[in-house]
């Protein structure tokens, strides 16, 4: 499947929160967590854009 690259800028505090979330087992790595967050947020807000 074709992929498109989006560049996200994160500071050290934001990376720290994501990395601790990864360490807790929510996702295998930071990139996977960001993609997971996007999908889960889409599920949470399925009815609105």
């Amino acid at each position, binding site marked *: *499947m074709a992929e498109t*690259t989006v560049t*996200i800028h994160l500071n050290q505090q934001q990376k720290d*929160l994501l990395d601790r979330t990864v360490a*807790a087992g929510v996702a295998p790595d930071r990139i996977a967590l960001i993609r997971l*967050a996007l999908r889960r947020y*889409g599920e949470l807000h399925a009815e609105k854009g």
Partner: protein
Amino acid sequence: MRTLIEEFVLEPGTGKALELRKGQILRLEQIEGGQCLDFNCFNLDDYKEFFHCGRTRTLHGIHPTRGDFLWSAPPRERAMMYILADTAGANDVMFPRCSANLYESVYGYDAHTNCQDIQAEAQREYGLTPDDVHDSFNLFMCTGVDENGRTYITRQVSKPGDHVELLALMDVLAVPNICGADVMRTSNFAIRPAKVQIFAASDEDFAAVPPLRSWRTQRTVADFKVKAIRTERKLARDPDYRPEFVNTPIDYEAIEIALDAEELALLGRLARREQYGDRDGEALRDIVFSWWEETRPIG
């Protein structure tokens, strides 16, 4: 079974500083009904820790009631008292205390009962100054916010026997006062006495308090770089000062995220374009941290 320790009537125009030990209850009761009371609260062992309307407002809203806590100001942020009972359900943490200046500037009084001066006079018994009076927890005060975002005060709803009970979760100096406002609707244009009681809490009272978690960031003086309380009023720069702000400098790293077509479409649907325009990276960052805030995937 509760044990009554002290009981008295707080007379109009007055307040009283009361030492409450952890596990004691302050009960403030309407006698005639319709009377607002202002309330200050200090850590008895360190007066620089005191009740904070902002912290309390953030956690419990603008009308704290039964089941809510009274929190101290940052950087302490500890539960000082717990609201065991509130029969009128009309308390406020938006409005400031009334002051002598209010009654001069609006009503032309040379002198008029006011919560700032009543609190200051009551707190003077413990060596506190008028500057130590803090934003008050306003008991039996009906307030709201209108459609334009402006705060307002309405007339009293409390009846004789209505009461608020505050359980001390630490040793505190608790300072209730009868609100001095008799020319505004706060207390239906009157000043009336209120009944004050102090009890030793029962096992049932303690059982009503939800468990509290302790946090490393509930700081004490031991955490402060400057531990001494200033005695000089005039401020002067410390020539040895070197800034030590936390986590600075803030550095941003560009991270590339490969999104498949489905994810890209999802981003297109969820992106707050009115906020971020075509800046997909900022829109994605908003989504990621909004998801985190909403779901709190880790505690």
